[in-house]
């Protein structure tokens, strides 16, 4: 096993034994390397770019205790376990001996948001390289101490071992500032063939507490002297609080305080249920002036097409002129859909000695801190945001808003920790939804039934109103100073927002893709898992089926005709084969099969899904029977974790696709609980879901948390069309729509 063969080590050898090693080394090596390699040196891997010091990621105490730090957060996607696997592998230490610290502005690197399936790419890559470089430094130190060349040494279970069996533990080898050095652009990583931890289905470290009632969520954080708060949210967007009888509520038993600041209204009590009762009394006594004017619910598509838009051509390909042939076109819509977390948003905050600490299930502790600090006019270093898990969020839900609520209330009660949890109707009505969208596709086939021309346009709001400034937070908009909502911006490609995955991976001789970004937001929106990819992949992939049908080609074969990327072809072939795909064999009446594929963001994980469904003719009810998926997310870290993510994405996408639509009247959101916003229950869950992982040892980590959403929706849409012989293009593909489309 070789150690880092860079100039750093020779520099280090020169310095070794001078006694001044530690401090000199701390600043010297990367400068040296840069001076040598000049402008041509490659960028640091993953999040090391933003936080280059090795000890921002890995610390080793003199007693050998190892701490790994990440700026990413556990959302139930298993990221903690995956990151520990990477660290344990490259450090050569048992996984269970490592302490992992997740996002905390007081301790960890700033890795922005845990979103966009980027954790393995950003943090996983940083930790892998940092760990490899830390191990190299330890090897080199051992080489100095033992007088043995590095290539004769090996590492095992947290120690360096010499050929004669002499052991030096990492704790013995590490110097006080040894790891406070900048990372190098290149690391000598382990050969994937020798992996002992990466690629293994290690059980998730967070599950035992979750199934035994341990402290697993911010909801369970009980600090001494904890108070419970509830917020009274306005009845509709922008409503003004005209009057409220705070005095009467403050006299209720157990009530500590009513906090009113402009249109922000909350109550604090000694016990949780007393806070809820007081919240209800407060809400009953509040009078609001409502001004919201929401669009007609069924009219959103034409509204989106009418609203002013910033248009950009995001892809253009001009090849051979299109020959005359069959022309097809189709329009797609998606209603507003919600994250609908099972646990309403929660946060705990405490103001003490001028410093505010907020425990939050935000996806971004640093952006959240910036927004809260701005809201309260505190310098950012006076606000500390510590992540603790919440219920699954699937994007930007009420988490940041609840953190702001807790911060604002805690400011009014210095010295006392305050816990806020939203009520179900608050979560449903106030979370920022996945934006409504419209897509239009046109294509022409040539005389041979090949696609000669492809055009796709998508209309959408932004897919992120995350903090941002204070104005991103509901509390900051409501309270006295009323921070204005920041102007929305489109998210740049290659990630994209409304245009995420709007560019097909298929190669057509002529193609054009246009993104119409709509700044006006009639309904509060933000990032929902997969962003625009869900709608764009549904549109592209169901339109591909229409084209395949027009060309008289099997849909799987049709897709392969336009794909050059071997890994894309592989996931399609594996999913088709494991499913037993054949369009030759007819299914029983009422049954249909469908296929869907995408490479998430055109640069992350590849995923293909095949599905079989049954449609009841009388009711229009769809029952997914079985789904088979294949996924390639590069080097697999935890295959079972990956399978779990893709299974979940398929079921969640089925729920969105079959049932989900936010409802509202001219003033208020009316989807305020699980009866007005139903999601999938056990009776509709398929008989089986099989996910096949294609491992790519040594290839870079590709994000996979959101890769299944689009392909699953497309496979479902295509299967329904196959079952009923009619195309539905408006999401959700609800029972009433299917019934209406069903041929008599």
């Amino acid at each position, binding site marked *: 096993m070789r150690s880092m063969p860079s100039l750093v080590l020779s520099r280090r050898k020169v310095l070794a034994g001078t006694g001044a090693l530690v401090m000199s080394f701390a600043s010297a090596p990367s400068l040296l390397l840069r001076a040598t390699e000049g402008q041509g040196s490659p960028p640091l891997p993953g999040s090391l770019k933003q936080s280059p010091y090795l000890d921002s990621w890995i610390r080793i105490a003199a007693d050998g205790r190892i701490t790994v730090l990440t700026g990413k957060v556990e959302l139930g996607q298993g990221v903690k376990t995956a990151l520990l696997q990477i660290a344990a592998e490259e450090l050569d230490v048992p996984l269970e001996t490592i302490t992992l610290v997740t996002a905390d502005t007081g301790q960890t690197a700033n890795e922005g948001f845990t979103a966009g399936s980027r954790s393995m790419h950003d943090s996983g890559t940083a930790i892998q390289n940092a760990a490899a470089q830390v191990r190299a430094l330890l090897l080199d130190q051992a080489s100095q101490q033992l007088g043995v060349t590095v290539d004769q040494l090996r590492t095992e279970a947290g120690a360096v071992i010499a050929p004669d069996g002499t052991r030096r533990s990492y704790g013995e080898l590490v110097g006080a500032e040894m790891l406070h050095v900048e990372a190098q652009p290149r690391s000598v990583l382990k050969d994937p063939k020798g992996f002992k931890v990466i690629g293994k289905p290690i059980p998730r470290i967070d599950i035992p507490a*979750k199934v035994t009632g341990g402290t697993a969520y911010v909801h369970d954080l009980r600090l001494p002297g904890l108070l419970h708060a509830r917020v009274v949210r306005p009845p509709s967007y922008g409503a003004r609080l005209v009057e409220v009888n705070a005095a009467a509520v403050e006299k209720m038993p157990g009530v500590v305080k009513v906090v009113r600041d402009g249109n922000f209204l909350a109550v604090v009590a000694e016990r949780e249920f007393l806070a809820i009762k007081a919240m209800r009394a407060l809400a009953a006594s509040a009078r609001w002036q409502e001004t919201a004017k929401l669009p007609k619910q069924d009219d959103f598509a034409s509204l989106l097409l009418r609203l002013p838009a910033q248009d950009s051509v995001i892809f253009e390909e001009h090849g051979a002129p299109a020959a005359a042939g069959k022309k097809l076109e189709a329009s797609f819509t998606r209603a507003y859909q919600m994250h609908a977390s099972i*646990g309403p948003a929660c946060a705990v905050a405490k103001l003490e000695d001028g410093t505010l600490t907020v425990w939050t299930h935000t996806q971004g502790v640093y952006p959240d801190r910036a927004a809260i600090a701005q809201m309260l006019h505190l310098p950012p270093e006076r606000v500390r945001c510590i992540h603790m898990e919440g219920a699954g969020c699937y994007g930007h839900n009420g988490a940041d808003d609840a953190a702001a609520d807790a911060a604002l209330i805690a400011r009014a009660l210095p010295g006392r920790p305050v816990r806020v949890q939203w009520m179900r109707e608050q979560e449903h009505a106030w979370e920022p939804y996945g934006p409504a969208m419209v897509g239009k596709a046109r294509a022409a086939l040539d005389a041979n039934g090949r696609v000669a021309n492809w055009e796709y346009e998508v209309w959408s709001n932004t897919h992120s109103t995350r903090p941002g400034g204070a104005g991103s937070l509901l509390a900051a908009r409501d309270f006295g100073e009323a921070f204005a909502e920041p102007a929305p911006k489109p998210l740049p490609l290659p990630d994209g927002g409304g245009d995420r995955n709007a560019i097909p991976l298929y190669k057509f001789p002529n193609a054009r893709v246009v993104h119409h970004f709509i700044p006006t937001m009639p309904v509060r929106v933000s990032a929902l898992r997969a962003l625009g990819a869900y709608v764009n992949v549904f549109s592209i992939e169901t339109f591909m089926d229409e084209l395949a049908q027009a060309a008289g080609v099997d849909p799987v074969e049709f897709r392969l005709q336009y794909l050059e990327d071997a890994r894309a072809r592989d996931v399609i072939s594996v999913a088709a084969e494991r499913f037993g795909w054949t369009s030759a064999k007819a299914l029983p009446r009422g049954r249909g099969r469908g296929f869907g594929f995408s490479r998430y963001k055109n640069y992350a994980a590849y995923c293909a899904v095949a599905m079989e469904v049954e449609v009841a003719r009388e009711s229009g009810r769809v029952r997914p029977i079985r789904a088979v998926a294949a996924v390639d997310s590069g080097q697999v870290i935890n295959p079972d974790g990956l399978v779990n993510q893709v299974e979940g994405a398929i079921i969640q996408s089925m729920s969105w696709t079959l049932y989900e639509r936010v409802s509202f009247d001219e003033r208020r959101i009316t989807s305020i609980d699980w009866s007005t916003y139903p999601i999938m229950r056990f009776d509709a869950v398929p008989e089986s879901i099989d996910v096949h992982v294609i491992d790519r040892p040594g290839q870079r980590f590709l994000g996979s948390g959101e890769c299944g959403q689009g392909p699953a929706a497309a496979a479902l849409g295509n299967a329904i069309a196959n079952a009923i012989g009619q195309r539905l293009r408006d999401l959700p593909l609800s029972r009433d729509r299917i019934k209406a489309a069903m041929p008599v």
Partner: protein
Amino acid sequence: MTKLTVNGREHDISSAPDTPLLYVLRDELVLNGAKFGCGLGQCGACTVVVDGTAVLSCVTPLLLVAGKSVTTVEGLGTAHEPGPMQRAFMQEQAAQCGYCIPGMMMCAHALLQNNPRATDAEIRTALQPNLCRCGTHMRILRAVRRAAETMRTAQAPASARGAVP
């Protein structure tokens, strides 16, 4: 004071009689297992077992369970010594965010106590009131089936298992 037995221990509860059982468990008895999901009895995250029956604790006032015996997920075992239901969920890795899972486990626990040979269809029907948003359903079903098998094996007489004395 209201008498209540929780996970085998008797308590004198000071919460008012109209307090939903959920807040008695979480707030007064400091138990994390039962979760607030909706407060409306629509999602099952708060499910606990009362005298052998799955109950939605968010809509069950203390008054109605006075003197009864409540089991929460904490009563099924610990992280170090998990009971068969907990072990099955760990073995199947049947959780993503896990927020709904204790409710699922308690619902399944009540089912299997009353019907140790529950079929797949019966398991699905029993879990119908419980929502999972992460889409962990397939694993939850597998975990409940596994727990049922373990519990049946444990309960079966030694001779039926072919054990040698």
